[in-house]
């Protein structure tokens, strides 16, 4: 047991290295992830954007970009889930499990690598945002805190992705399942439209939705328009509520993922 503990960090680093090495070898994955987000930017900034006036008259593109970041980050779980099922299907997980290595390293290494991967995607999206007219108006500290929130959320979503990936039989199911759960989450939110325009029963969901609070938090931190501030706790304290969501997700899904991994075909 002690052998396993001392090797956990170095094993996780090896797994991280392995997962990062793969990214440029399968460029389609990163390209499509980025294209999907850019398509949303173009669609909402230039096609629907004009039809959605912001109360207080802020710039719609500046309003939109933090939501796009949050949406992209929420989809990070799909990347992880698909990668995990792929490793299972190809027998790699069995090989890892037959080695005298730390078992948690296979999971922690992947979540770290996927977080770094999302950081890369975030950089590209921010550059795209700058091109369409998105600007940061606050200081460096706020900017860094916003980025930290986004990447922290990406990391948490990776743990969710691992659990999903280990629970489904193949990559197609992993893809579908994450798609049908994450997509509604990003639409029943404040990302594209005023939450007040949603049906009444959906409004509390949109208010508490972690994608909403992450979006509101980063809008505030970047100094972008954040016109739909509710009176409730999520509206008033989006940063704290986002952090709370991250803790809740991590406490639920990391242990679930680890337990699932330990019991996989045992």
């Amino acid at each position, binding site marked *: 047991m002690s052998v396993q503990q001392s090797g956990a960090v170095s094993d996780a680093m*090896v797994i991280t290295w392995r997962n990062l090495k*793969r990214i440029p070898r399968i460029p389609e994955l990163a390209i499509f992830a980025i294209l999907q987000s850019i398509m949303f930017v173009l669609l909402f900034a230039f096609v629907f954007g004009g039809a959605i006036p912001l109360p207080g008259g802020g710039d719609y593109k500046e309003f939109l970009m933090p939501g796009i970041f949050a949406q992209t980050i929420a989809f990070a779980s799909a990347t992880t889930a698909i990668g995990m099922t792929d490793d299972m299907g190809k027998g790699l997980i069995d090989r890892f499990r037959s080695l005298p290595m730390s078992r948690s390293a296979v999971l922690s290494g992947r979540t770290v690598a996927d977080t770094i991967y999302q950081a890369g995607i975030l950089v590209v999206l921010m550059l795209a945002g700058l091109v369409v007219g998105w600007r940061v108006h606050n200081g460096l500290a706020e900017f860094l805190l916003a980025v930290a929130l986004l990447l922290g959320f990406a990391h948490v979503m990776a743990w969710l992705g691992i659990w999903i990936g280990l629970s489904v039989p193949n990559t197609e199911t992993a893809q579908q399942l994450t798609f049908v759960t994450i997509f509604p989450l990003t639409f029943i939110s404040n990302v594209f439209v005023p939450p007040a325009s949603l049906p009444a029963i959906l409004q509390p969901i949109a208010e508490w939705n972690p994608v909403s609070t992450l979006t509101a938090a980063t809008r505030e931190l970047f100094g972008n328009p954040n016109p739909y501030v509710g009176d409730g706790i999520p509206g008033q304290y989006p940063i704290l509520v986002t952090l709370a969501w991250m803790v809740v997700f991590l406490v639920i899904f990391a242990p679930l993922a680890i337990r699932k991994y330990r019991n996989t075909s045992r």
Partner: protein
Amino acid sequence: MTNAIEAEGLVKVYPARRGSTEVRALDGVDLQVPQGTVLGLLGPNGAGKTTTVRILTTLLRPDAGRATVAGYDVVTQSNEVRASIGLSGQYAAVDENLTGWENLYMFGRLYGMPKADAKMRANELLEQFTLADAGGRTIKTYSGGMRRRLDLAAALIGKPNLLFLDEPTTGLDPRSRLGMWDVIRGLVREGTTLLLTTQYLEEADELADTIAVVDTGKIIAQGTADELKAQVGGERIEVVVRDRAMLPAARELLGSAAAGEVEFDEHTRRLTAASTGGAQQLVAIVQAMGDAGIEIDDITLRRPTLDDVFLTLTGHHTADETVEENV
């Protein structure tokens, strides 16, 4: 001599799933593999070979029975077992998007080697498996045989004394298969204890000291290749007659010329019997058939296959009728 592998009464039941009933994959498997010897686990599709290997390599927990590998219990001391063994599973388990070298380096590091050692070992193994030129290419570009070799190389990263190979040559062309046999013989010469599974009697014969025949989760026979062959009766004469009507006559003739039962298949017009006199006898039978006016489409002398073993041991064919001797 101590046993490197010992299993007693292993049982594994896969629970029923939607659309399938529960499967009793192992139904009381006992095995002993003395240090430095090779055990061939011979059986048809679905016999339970992979399940046995997965239990012994700690990937699967048995529902009943116990097993020790390198002296460690596979359930309670799985870490120690994993540190003592190398495994190459039925399907090559390497990262398609890494190069051959990167794969080996990664497994070396995960085996606990320092960076410099892992690099050296990766180079060494690529050299040993004649993959040095391909070491810088991603696995995606490898042929099936190259993948298999790399997978075996990965199993050898930690220089294990105890190796598990699940169907190491299935899917390889005859030349690659011979190459793989050479590699495996080399390992055995150096003293590695080996458990290998195969669907080919010939392969077990070539590589194994002891052969265990497994069928529907049970070991139905165990012994040296010679012992097993003595039971099965050595080479076979196989005759295909032109005219179905001639089958009874041909059967009678073959029965008197060869040893034991003549097996025949009405549909394919094929007769099979154990041979007692090699090529000489073959010629005599051709002669006799000609004299009797029985036209022959084909006549061959072949080594016994898994199917023959099965027929002799169990009285029924393997479930998979397409098993072929293809070297």
